[in-house]
């Protein structure tokens, strides 16, 4: 890997870390398009529990790994919501880069190429 590519990757990672670590706290908290469609047809109380109607979300089951330390983009044990979301985002970027980059590096073609 060339030095120039190294700088590009470092800059790209820095942008990703800032987006996931800082900007993520300003993201919309409304349901996304899919979740909105899943909730359509039901009525909800202030706690987000279904109070009536018919919708997809009624059949929604719990996540098998919902008790994990980073579940739902927060860190268990950190009460400050900004810190919790931001740090979970930073960890997510690093984990994704490590797993993705590592796997791609392992399966790459092994011929030496100028970069």
């Amino acid at each position, binding site marked *: 890997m060339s030095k120039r590519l190294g700088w590009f990757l470092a800059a790209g990672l820095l942008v990703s870390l800032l987006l*996931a670590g800082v900007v993520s706290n300003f993201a919309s*908290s409304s349901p996304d398009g*899919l979740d909105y469609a899943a909730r359509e047809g039901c009525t909800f109380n202030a706690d987000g529990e279904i109070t009536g109607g018919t919708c997809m979300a009624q059949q929604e089951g719990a996540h098998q790994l919902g008790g994990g330390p980073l579940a739902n983009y927060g860190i268990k044990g950190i009460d400050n919501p900004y810190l919790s979301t931001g740090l979970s985002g930073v960890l997510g970027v690093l984990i994704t880069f490590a797993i*993705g980059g590592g796997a791609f*590096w392992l399966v790459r073609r092994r011929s030496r190429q100028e970069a």
Partner: protein
Amino acid sequence: MEAQAMHIANGIVDGPVSAIFAVFAVAALAYCVRRARADLDDRLAPMAGLVAAFIFAVQMLNFQVLPGVSGHLLGGTLAVILVGPWVGALCVATVLIVQCLVFADGGLTALGLNITNMALLGTAVAYVLVALLLRILPKNPGGLGATALIASIVSVVAASQGFVLEYAFGGTTDLPLPAVAGTLAGAHILIGIGEGLIAATTVVTVARVRPDLVYAQRRFRKTERVEAGAMA
């Protein structure tokens, strides 16, 4: 401020249909790995890791599209343009697997459904459009940006309709499908525009800084490479 689930949860589509799509997703990803090897060299492999990390980051950024409705980037178009279709599909799949296993976003049972819609269907549709549009649109940053925008809109709507297909086979609540399809298509046209603006900004920026790192330009705009090199 609470970050929330963004992908199909457990229980929305029944077990047998989820299992069928899981088998399909594994087979399709295995085929992608085979094809991706031809593209993955010492330069593309770390770039693909970065694309996956960037998509993870941007997926956290839900933007408002209507009162009470938000959306986030899926990433197929961005990935296709920067690292190609096979590696691109694997990048999006990597993000979905990390989100499911580490962040409990998108049910474990529903992982095959989510991968099919976003990593496979969304990326495939984006690839067809990118390959077509880059050949017919002007070979300049405007053409590249327009390609990213148009491909994003169509690919995001296609991914949302993938869910409708899965729901038609294994939906656990009896709902009128045309209404579900319409609601999803309407919201995802707007989400696609948002995704398209993010994808266009990203790929045009990379094309300015390092045109040689844009897979789609190397692949579909062979003449452009010389011009871009001369301009830089």
